């Protein structure tokens, strides 16, 4: 089913770097080409999707057709702050501690 003309455009190292950035992953330089190879192979297989006729089909995001399920608007007790902070890697008082945010993300 994998017709050659269905094969995706080759994934470049720059593409892999770009996707890693979108995914907030720090892929070490030396692993980029192995990852490129694996992803290319998987995308090559997935290309078989292009050979299926999908004209006029509504995408199916979910097996159940439930929409807008509403709960009763009843206040519930919240989880204690101490429980929520117990797993935090860095805490100051009742707050999560993070590095300096102002200055924006590196690009």
């Amino acid at each position, binding site marked *: *089913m994998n017709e050659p003309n269905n094969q995706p455009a080759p994934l470049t190292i720059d593409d*892999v770097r770009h*996707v*890693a*950035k*979108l*995914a*907030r*992953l*720090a*892929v*070490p330089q030396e692993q980029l080409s192995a*990852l490129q190879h*694996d*992803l290319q*192979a*998987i*995308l090559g*297989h*997935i*290309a*078989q*999707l*292009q050979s*299926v006729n*999908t004209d006029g*089909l*509504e*995408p*199916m*995001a*979910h*097996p*159940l057709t*439930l929409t807008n*399920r509403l*709960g009763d608007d009843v206040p519930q007790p919240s*989880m204690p702050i101490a*429980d*929520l902070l*117990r*797993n*935090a*890697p*860095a805490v100051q008082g009742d707050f*999560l501690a*993070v*590095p*300096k*945010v102002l*200055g*924006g*993300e*590196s690009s």
Partner: protein
Amino acid sequence: MNIDLVQVRDDIHTRKTTARATVDQTLARIARSNSQLNAYHEVFDDQARADADRIDHEIAAGNSVGVLAGVPIAIKDNIVTRIGHTTCSSRILENYRSPFDATVINRLTQAGAIIVGKTNLDEFAMGSSCEKCAWGVVRNPWDINRVPGGSSGGSAAAVAANLCAAALGSDTGGSIRQPAALCGVVGFKPTYGRISRYGLVAFGSSLDQIGPITHSVRDAALLYQCMAGDDPHDSTCAPRAVEDVVTTLEETPRAFRVGLPVQYRKGNSPSVDAAVARAVDFFKAMGATIVDVDLPLTDVGISTYYVIAPAEASSNLARFDGIRYGHRTKSKAAKDLFDLYAQSRSEGFGPEVQRRIMLGTYVLSAGYYDAYYRRALQIRRLIKQEFDTAFAKCDVILGPTSPTAAFSIGGMTDPLAMYMCDVYTVNTNIAGICGISLPAGFDETSQMPLPVGIQLQAQAFAEPMLLKVARAYERVQGGRKYPTA
């Protein structure tokens, strides 16, 4: 079948034995075997004994106890428990302790079940072999040089080696059924939405389903009955009544039709095809009608799955950012938030998880969304329609659970080849229907006999019929066998 959960429960409740003795025996077996099998990541000895004593006290006092009172149950470590840790077999959650219990944990413990420990999985349930577990590979009790399957391999191995009365797994593309087949036990994936996902660490939210891995079909039915039903904490839980599957289980199924997809007959090992053929003969002898059905998109299921599941995973796993919980990098090089996120995630996630996050991010990214993600969702509808057409001709679809018996540890290095293990199971999740894997004999061609499984699939919410048919098969089969080790 003298050690299934129902039998153990009955023995405790009729005071032939005690919960404490049952728990002690289970803990002793774990102490003996777990260093070799690595089924459990964590075992709650003291709490399990205390729970058992409390239940024995209730029984001795003549008080009524729950239907699961006293039975030791193992929990896949991607289902959150206040007791112990919940790690998803990932370094990123190595020290994570949940502040709440999953809905299934509440329902099981309210019925008296004793949580004996947390079992290993492929990291974040991404794998079919339990080799991608941060705490070491899990081994198959039938042959320790082979994989138990995955991702619920720790739970399947624990049941197979009798290290618990039953276990919970989760199934996103076969992760309950495939390890159950490879370990020679029962693995049941209910219809999507039948059991609350609240407290199941999300992988593919439109595919994930919790289910039991058990010694017998009647155990699976009982655990399902205890867990199924709507939950205000999960808006994707089906708001419909749960039929009583336990009391109807022993009824002989009324005239039913078994569908055999032509697409399920190629590329299987001979022992797997033979197991399916034996099952066909059994159902014929029972008076069932055997019909051919057509599922031409069986192969395309893997491609569809490897777009949808990674896409959902890349979104779900975005929550692991090193801020609120989980691993945070100690690297001084992380100067800003971006570095902190990326360094923490790449240190915490293993290679397969990172590969799937990358794949999911790619198929959702600008310029590729329509070609991959949207198209996969359209094909998902086609796959659902294919099942609907097939189920107009039959009540259950019979086939293999996995194309082969357990493979050797380290024997499958190509990620794509590993993905193909799930060719018969992913479409169940894509369509949101139910399926069960049953022990169905052995592959005798290898050095040690290895279990093979058959799968029965049924339409969404057809659990009562599916379980009845599975139980009828089990009664004739004589139940599961036990590894000698």
